[in-house]
C-alpha cells in the first residue's frame, strides 16, 4: 500500500523541471555577467566612474 501523500497543486514533469533549471541558470549567468561588467568598468575608470559626461 502506498502511504506517500499525494502532492497538492501542479506537479512539473521532468522535462518542465529541466527547462526551468536551464532558464534559471541562464538568468544567473546573465546577472553574473552584469556584476562582472560593473566591477571591471569600475576598476578601469577608477574614481572617474562617478563622472558621466552627457
Amino acid at each position, binding site marked *: 500500500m502506498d502511504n506517500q501523500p499525494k502532492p497538492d497543486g*501542479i506537479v*512539473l514533469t521532468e522535462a*518542465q523541471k529541466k*527547462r*526551468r533549471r*536551464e*532558464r534559471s541558470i*541562464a538568468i544567473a549567468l546573465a546577472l553574473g555577467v*552584469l556584476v562582472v*561588467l*560593473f566591477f*571591471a*568598468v569600475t*576598476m*578601469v575608470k577608477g574614481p572617474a*566612474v562617478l563622472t*558621466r*559626461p*552627457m
Partner: protein
Amino acid sequence: MREVGLILSVLDHNAIELSPRISEAEVADYIALLKPRVMSLVVFTAMVGFFLAPGHVHPVLAITSILCIAVGGGASGALNMWYEGDIDALMSRTANRPIPRGRVTRPEALAFGMTLAFFSVMTLGILVNWLAGALLAFTIFFYVVVYTMWLKRWTAQNIVIGGAAGALPPVVAWAAATGSLSVEPILLFLIIFFWTPPHFWALALFRNDDYTRAGVPMLPVVAGPDATRLQILLYTVVLVAIAVAPWPLGYFDAVYGIASLILGAGMLGLAINVYRRRHGSAALRATRKLFAFSILYLFGLFAILLLEVVARAIAPLIW
C-alpha cells in the same frame, strides 16, 4: 436554476483563466526572441562605427558598449515579436518563431524585451555615456513604437522610414566611443538607411503571398511588383552614389572607394536585372539574387572599413 448554471459556468471559465500556465520555453526560445541574425548585423555595424571613431577607448569599455548595443538590438527584436505575434503566425517565414509556436507567451516576450531594453540602456548610460544611452533608447523606441506598432501596418513606406532604426547602431557606437557625433557616423547611417528599401523590397517581392495573407501593406502588396521593381532600382542608384561619396569627400580612403565602386556595380547590375525580368522563374531568381547580394554588399562595405582600421592599428607594430 438557469442563473445558478450561468454562475457556475462563469466560475468554471474563471478557474480555467486563473489556472497557472507552466512555461514550456527553452533557453533557445528566448535566444530566438532576440533575432540572432539581425543582432549579428547590428553588432557588426556597431563595431565598425566604434572602431572608426578617433581616439583610444579601453577594451573593457569597448566590450561593454558593443554588448549593450547587441542586447538593445535583441530587446527590440523581442518587443517586435511580442507585438507581431498575430501576423507572425500567418507568414511562413515567421510561423516558427517562439510565440506562434506557443513556446513563449506574448506577456513573457514583453517582460523579456522590456527588461533587456531597460538594462541595456541604463548600463550603457551609466558605464559609458548618456549620449550613447539616449541614442540606444531612441533606437529601441523607433523600432518598436514608430516602425512595428505604427508604420508597419499603416503605410507602404514602412521600411523606408523604419529603416532608420536599423541604421542607428553605428551612430550609437560612435557616440559610445567619443561622447559626441560627427559626419562619419552619419555617412554610415545613410548607407544602411538607403540599403534597407532595396533589401527588404527584394524580400517582399518573393514573399508577396506571405505579406498579402498577413495584411501587411508592403510596397509589392499595395503598389504591385512592377512599381516595386522601379523603386528598388531608384533606391539602389541613390544607395550606390551615397556609398561611394565618402571617398571623393575625403572621409574614407581610396581602398574603400574602389571597393564601394565594385560592390556598387554588382548591386546596380542585379537591381537592373530585377527591373528587367518581371515574369516566371527568371524574375524570382533575379529578386533572390539581389536579396542575397545586398547582404554581401553591406557586409563588404563595412568589413573593408573595419579591416582598414585594423590595418592602420597594427601597421606601426609591423614596420
